[in-house]
C-alpha cells in the first residue's frame, strides 16, 4: 500500500506541475501584455510600463513563473490590481460559502442516491424500480437552475419559510448562514442524487449478479445481507469513481446555483474577475481549483487501493 500511495503521490505532484505550467502559459503567454490588458485601451504607454514594472510583469516569463509558484507555496496568491486586496483573503472569504454548499450538496446527493439506487437495483423489472428510474431520468433532465428557481418559489415565496436568496455571513449569524444555504444545497443535492442514483443502480445490479454474491448466499447470508455486506462493498469502487467526477463537476454546478440564489461564492468571484480583467486573481484562483480537482483524483486513487486489494498489489 505504501508503494502504491507513493506512486499516486508522484502522479499527483506531476499533474499539478503540468497544470501550473499550462495555466501560466495560456493566461500570460498567449494573453499579450498583461499591464495593457488590465489598464484598458486608453492607457498611456508610460502608465502601462509603470504598472508592469511595479508588478514585475516586465521580467522574463520563466522568472515570473518561478516567482508565482514560490509565492503560492508560501500562501501568497498575489493581489488584485484594482482593489489591492490579497487573492488569498478574497478566496478564503468566498470558500466559507462555496465549501459548505458543495460539500453538503454532495453528501445530500449520496444520502439519497445510495439507498434509492440500491432499492432500484433490487426491484429492477418491477413497477417500483421503473418508477424510480423514471424519476431519476427526470431529475437528470432538469437543469440545476430550474430546480433552484422552483424550490425558491415554493419555500421562499409561497411558504415564506426560507430566504429566496442572498447571504448572511457566518460571523453575523450562523443560523442565518445555514438558512441561506438550505435551498441551494437542496437544489444541488437533488440534481446530484438523480445522476448518482443511475450509477449506484447499475453498480449494484452488476455486483448482484456476481458469483461471489451467490457464494455469500450459499454459505448462509440472506439475499439482503449478501447485497449489503458483500455487494455494496464491491460496488464501492465504481461509486467512488463517479463521486470523484461529480466533485469536479460541482465547481461548475455551483456557478449557476450561486447566481440563482445570489450567494457570494468562489465561482461567481472568478466570473466577476474575468470580466474585470484581473489576470492575477483569475490565474491563481483557477490554479487553486485545478489543484483541488487533481487532489480529489489523488484521494480517489488512494481509496481504490484501500477498497480493492487487487489494485494496491498491482502497484
Amino acid at each position, binding site marked *: 500500500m505504501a508503494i502504491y500511495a507513493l506512486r499516486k503521490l508522484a502522479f499527483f505532484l506531476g499533474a499539478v506541475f503540468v497544470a501550473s505550467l499550462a495555466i501560466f502559459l495560456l493566461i500570460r503567454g498567449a494573453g499579450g501584455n498583461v499591464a495593457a490588458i488590465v489598464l484598458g485601451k486608453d492607457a498611456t504607454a508610460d502608465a502601462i510600463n509603470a504598472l508592469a514594472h511595479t508588478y514585475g510583469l516586465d521580467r522574463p516569463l520563466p522568472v515570473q513563473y518561478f516567482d508565482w509558484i514560490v509565492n503560492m507555496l508560501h500562501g501568497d496568491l498575489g493581489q488584485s490590481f484594482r482593489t489591492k486586496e490579497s487573492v488569498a483573503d478574497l478566496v478564503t472569504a468566498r470558500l466559507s460559502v462555496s465549501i459548505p454548499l458543495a460539500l453538503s450538496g454532495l453528501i445530500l446527493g449520496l444520502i439519497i442516491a445510495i439507498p434509492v439506487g440500491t432499492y432500484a437495483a433490487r426491484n429492477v423489472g418491477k413497477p417500483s424500480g421503473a418508477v424510480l428510474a423514471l424519476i431519476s431520468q427526470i431529475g437528470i433532465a432538469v437543469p440545476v437552475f430550474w430546480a433552484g428557481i422552483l424550490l425558491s418559489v415554493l419555500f421562499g415565496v409561497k411558504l415564506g419559510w426560507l430566504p429566496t436568496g442572498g447571504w448572511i455571513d457566518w460571523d453575523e449569524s450562523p443560523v442565518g448562514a445555514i438558512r441561506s444555504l438550505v435551498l441551494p444545497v437542496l437544489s444541488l443535492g437533488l440534481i446530484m442524487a438523480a445522476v448518482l442514483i443511475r450509477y449506484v443502480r447499475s453498480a449494484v445490479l452488476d455486483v448482484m449478479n456476481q*458469483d461471489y454474491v451467490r457464494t455469500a448466499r450459499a454459505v448462509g447470508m440472506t439475499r439482503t445481507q449478501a447485497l449489503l455486506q458483500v455487494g455494496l462493498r464491491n460496488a464501492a469502487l465504481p461509486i467512488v469513481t463517479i463521486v470523484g467526477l461529480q466533485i469536479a463537476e460541482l465547481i461548475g454546478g455551483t456557478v449557476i446555483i450561486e447566481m440563482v440564489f445570489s450567494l457570494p461564492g468562489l465561482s461567481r468571484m472568478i466570473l466577476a474577475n474575468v470580466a474585470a480583467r484581473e489576470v492575477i486573481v483569475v490565474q491563481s484562483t483557477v490554479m487553486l481549483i485545478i489543484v483541488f480537482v487533481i487532489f480529489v483524483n489523488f484521494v480517489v486513487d488512494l481509496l481504490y487501493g484501500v477498497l480493492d486489494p487487487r489494485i494496491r498489489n498491482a502497484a
Partner: protein
Amino acid sequence: MQTNSARPAIEVRDLVVGNGDVTAVRGVSFTIPQGGRMGLVGESGSGKSMTALALMGLLPMGWSTRGSILHDGVDLVTQSDRALSSRRGRTLSMVFQDPLSSLNPVRRVGDQISSVIRRHTGADKRTAEAQTVELMKQMNLPRAEQLVRAYPHEISGGQRQRIMIAMALACYPQLIIADEPTTALDVTVQKQVLRLLNGAVRDRGSALLMITHDLPIIAAMCDTVAVMYAGRIVEIGPVQEVFRNPRHHYTRGLLDSQPTMDNIALDGSSRLVSIPGMVPPLHALPTGCAFNPRCPAATDKCREQMPELGAEALRAACWHPLAKVGEVAAQ
C-alpha cells in the same frame, strides 16, 4: 415416523424449474440417502446446474421452482429466503465451478471461511479463526497460518478451490453439491482437488451430489448416477451397472463419446464417436422423447409419447431400451 438416520439426505420429487418462458428442469425426481453419492451428468443446457441451484434456493432472479425438495424434515421449496439461508452452509452447501469469481475479491480468504463458522455456530472470533486454520490444514493448504491473510487473487486456482471446499464443509453439512468443481482448474491439480473433496466428504459422512460431464469422475466418486437430457432424467441407477450396461441410447452415446486410450488413435484417424445433432433449445423441444431426433432407434411412438422413468426394473426413460448383455432387446 422415520428415524433421523434413515431419513435421506435429500429427496427430490417432480422438480420443475422455469422462468415463465422456458422450463429448464421438467419433472426430476431422485433420492440421495445419508452419506450417499450421486453423480448428475449431461451436456450443457441439460438442466443439471439449474437442478443444483434449485436445491440450494439460489436460482437467478425470475426463476421459480415447483415440486418438492425434502431435506432435514422440511420441504425446501416452501421455505422463505431467510429460512433457507439458515440452512445454506450448515445442512446443505455447494462448491461452485469457478473459484476465482466465486470468492469475494476484497476479503481475506481466512475471514471468508471463519465468517461462515461464526454465522452458523455462534463461535467467537478467536475460536472461529483457530478452526479456520485447522480446516485449511485439513485441506492440505500450505502455510495455513499465513495463507489466512491472503486475498483470493494472491493464491493459485487449486488453493482457491480448496478454500471454497473448506467454506462448504466448515459446518459438516448433510449434503454437499459440487457443480463441476474442477472444470476451471489445471488438469494437474484436478485430481488432487477431487481426492481432497472425496476424503473430506467421506470424513464428514456427508452425502454428495456431483455434477459433471466427466464420466470417469462419476465412476470414481459416486455410487449412483443420473443422466439428464433436456431437463429430464433419462436414466438412473448404480454407477457400475449404468456405465457397463447403459439402457438409454443417450447414455450409450455419452459413453461412446468419452475419449479413452482405446479410442484415441495416435495417427489422427480418431475413432471417437459423437452423438449426431445438438441438444434441442428449451423453447423448441420435440414432442415425445426429447432425444428422438438424435436417437438411432427412434420410432413413431418416440415422436408422439414421452417415456417416463419406470419402477426399479425400468431404470431408463426409453421406449426401446438397449438390451442387457446376453439378453434380446424388448421391441
